[in-house]
C-alpha cells in the first residue's frame, strides 16, 4: 500500500481529530459524538439546519464543506460506509434552530437506512427533518430515483446551503436542493482502485492502462471497461451522455465541475476541461463558473468525472453565495 497510516481501525477518528484541530476556527467535533463535525457558528438563528454526510474516504466531501455559508454539520461514517443512526440524530440536535433540518447525501441504500432512523429519532423530539438524495450519476441507473450520488453532491449541497443562508424555510431549502439535483448530471471514468487502509489492498482489480467508464466512487462497476483512450475522446463520450441528459441547448448556462477521484493530477483535469469547454462552446452553452480539483474523492483512486449543473438566476446566486468552509472558500 502506498499510504502511511496508524491503526486502520482508528483512522477515521484520527482523521477527524486532525481535521478539527487544523480548522478549529471554523469547525469542531460534537463533544458527545466524535462522528459529527459541526460549524462553530451553528445553530444559526432562524436558519434551516443543513446536514450533509456519508461514508469517509471521500474527503474533502462532507467534512470539508462545513462552515460559514455552507453546511452546518457533516455526519461521518466508516470508510465507504454510511454513518450510523446515532450521529445522524445528534447532528440534528446540534444544529437545529427551530426551523427544521435538511439531510443531504448521496443515494445509497445504507445511507438511507441510517439517516432515516436518525430522522425518526429527531421526529420523536418534534424536529422536522427532510431528506434530499443526490442522484447525479447518470450511468448508475436508467430511472433517476435509483441513481447514485457522486461529485454532484457538491453542487446540491452548495445550493441548499445558500438557500438556507438566504433565509428560505425548510420547504424552500428542500425545493432548492431538489432543483439543483434535477439539473445536475455527472459521469466519471475510473483508471484504477483506491487502497483500503484496513486490508492494505486495492479495493478492486484494474490493470494499468485500462479504464472503466461510469464507475461509481466506491468502485461500483460502470458501463464498460477497455483500454484507455485519448482524453478528448473520453471527455466527448461523457459529454455525449450529459448534454442530452440535461437537454442542454444553445443559450443555456451551466456550472462545470471536473473532479479528481484522488490520484488524477490537476494537469489532466485542466486538459479534460479544455475539451469540455470546447464542446460547450460549439453547442452555444455558456459556462457560469468552473470548479476543477478533487471535490469528491475516493482516497487515492485514479479517475475523474465531469459534472454539469444547468443554472438559472437562482441557482447561479446560490452557487456564488460566499462561504468560508475549509475546503471551499469563495469570496
Amino acid at each position, binding site marked *: 500500500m502506498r499510504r502511511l497510516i496508524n491503526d486502520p*481501525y482508528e483512522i477515521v477518528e484520527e482523521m477527524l481529530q486532525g481535521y478539527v484541530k487544523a480548522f478549529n476556527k471554523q469547525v469542531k467535533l460534537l463533544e458527545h459524538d466524535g462522528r459529527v463535525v459541526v460549524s462553530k457558528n451553528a445553530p444559526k438563528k432562524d436558519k434551516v439546519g443543513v446536514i450533509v454526510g456519508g*461514508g469517509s474516504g471521500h474527503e474533502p466531501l462532507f467534512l470539508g464543506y462545513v462552515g460559514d455559508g455552507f453546511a452546518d454539520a457533516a455526519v461521518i*461514517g*466508516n*470508510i*465507504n*460506509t*454510511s*454513518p*450510523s*443512526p*446515532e450521529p445522524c440524530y445528534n447532528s440534528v440536535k446540534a444544529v437545529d434552530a427551530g426551523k427544521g433540518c435538511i439531510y443531504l447525501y448521496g443515494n*445509497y*441504500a*445504507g445511507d438511507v*437506512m*441510517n439517516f432515516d*432512523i436518525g430522522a425518526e429519532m429527531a421526529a420523536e423530539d418534534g424536529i422536522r427533518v427532510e431528506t434530499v438524495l443526490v442522484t447525479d450519476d447518470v450511468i*448508475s*441507473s436508467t430511472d433517476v430515483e*435509483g441513481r*447514485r450520488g457522486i461529485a454532484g453532491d457538491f453542487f446540491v449541497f452548495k445550493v441548499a446551503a445558500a438557500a438556507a443562508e438566504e433565509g428560505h424555510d425548510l420547504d424552500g431549502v428542500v425545493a432548492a436542493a431538489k432543483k439543483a439535483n434535477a439539473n445536475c448530471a455527472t459521469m466519471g471514468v475510473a483508471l484504477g482502485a483506491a487502497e*483500503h487502509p*484496513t*486490508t492494505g*489492498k486495492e*479495493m*478492486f482489480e484494474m490493470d494499468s492502462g485500462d479504464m472503466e467508464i461510469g464507475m*461509481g466512487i*466506491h*468502485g*461500483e*462497476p460502470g458501463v464498460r471497461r477497455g483500454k484507455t483512450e485519448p482524453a478528448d475522446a473520453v471527455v466527448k463520450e461523457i459529454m455525449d451522455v450529459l448534454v442530452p441528459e440535461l437537454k442542454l441547448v444553445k443559450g443555456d448556462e451551466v456550472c462545470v465541475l471536473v473532479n479528481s477521484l484522488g490520484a488524477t493530477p490537476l494537469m489532466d483535469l485542466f486538459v479534460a476541461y479544455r475539451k469540455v469547454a470546447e464542446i460547450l462552446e460549439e453547442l452555444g452553452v455558456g459556462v457560469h463558473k468552473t470548479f476543477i480539483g478533487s471535490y469528491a474523492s475516493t482516497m487515492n483512486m485514479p479517475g475523474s468525472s465531469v459534472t454539469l449543473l444547468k443554472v438559472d438566476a437562482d441557482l447561479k446566486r446560490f452557487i456564488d453565495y460566499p462561504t468560508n468552509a475549509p475546503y471551499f472558500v469563495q469570496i
Partner: protein
Amino acid sequence: MYENTVLGKAYFTRVIVDMAAMAERERDYLAQLDSPIGDGDHGINLSIGFREVTKKLPEWENENLTSLFKKVGMTLLGKVGGAAGPLYGGFFMKFGEAANNKEEVTFDELALMFKSGIELIESRGKAVIADKTMVDTLRPFTDALLAAVEAEIEPLTAFEQCLQVAEKGRDSTIPLIAKKGRAVRLGERAIGHLDPGSASSYMILNIFYDNLKKELA
C-alpha cells in the same frame, strides 16, 4: 419436546465470541466478495462492529438474553453503519427481544428469536427472497427451522437440515440479478457473484450450530 435443550447465557456468549472471531478471520474474504458487486467493505464493516462488541462484552456479564442482544445490536447499529449496521444491528435487537428478558431459552424459543430477527431485516431492508441479499439465506433458514420445530425434530438434526437450506439459499444468490443493495445498479453484471451478506449470514448460522453441537454433546 424441547424442555431439555436449554440454551443459556454461556451458549449465547460463546456464539457472540465466535462471531467476532469469524468477522476477523473472514474479513478480507467477505470484503473481497463485496468488491465486484458492492463497495468492497462488508467484511471490514463486520469486523469494526464485532471488535467493539468484543471490547464491551465483559461489561455485559449480568445482562439477560434480551438486554444482552439489545446491546450487541445497538453496538453494531452504532459502529458499523452502511447496510449491514442497521440490518444486523436490528436483527440482534429483535432476536434478543423475542427472548422476553429470560436468562435461557429452549430450542423452540430460539427459533422464534430467529423469526423475530429476520422480520426486522425484511421490514427495514424491504427485501424479499431472490433480491440477492442476506434474506436469501436467513428467510429460508428461518422458515425451515420453524417447520422443524413444528415437526418436533431433534434440535441438532433440525439445525443441520436448516443449515443446508441456508446454504442453498446463499448459493441461490449467485445467478441472480440484485433487486436491493448496491448491486442493483449492476444489472446483469451481478450475475455469477455470491452476495456477501448472504455469505456472512450463513457463517453466523454455522456458529449457532457449532456451539449447539458442543452444548448438546
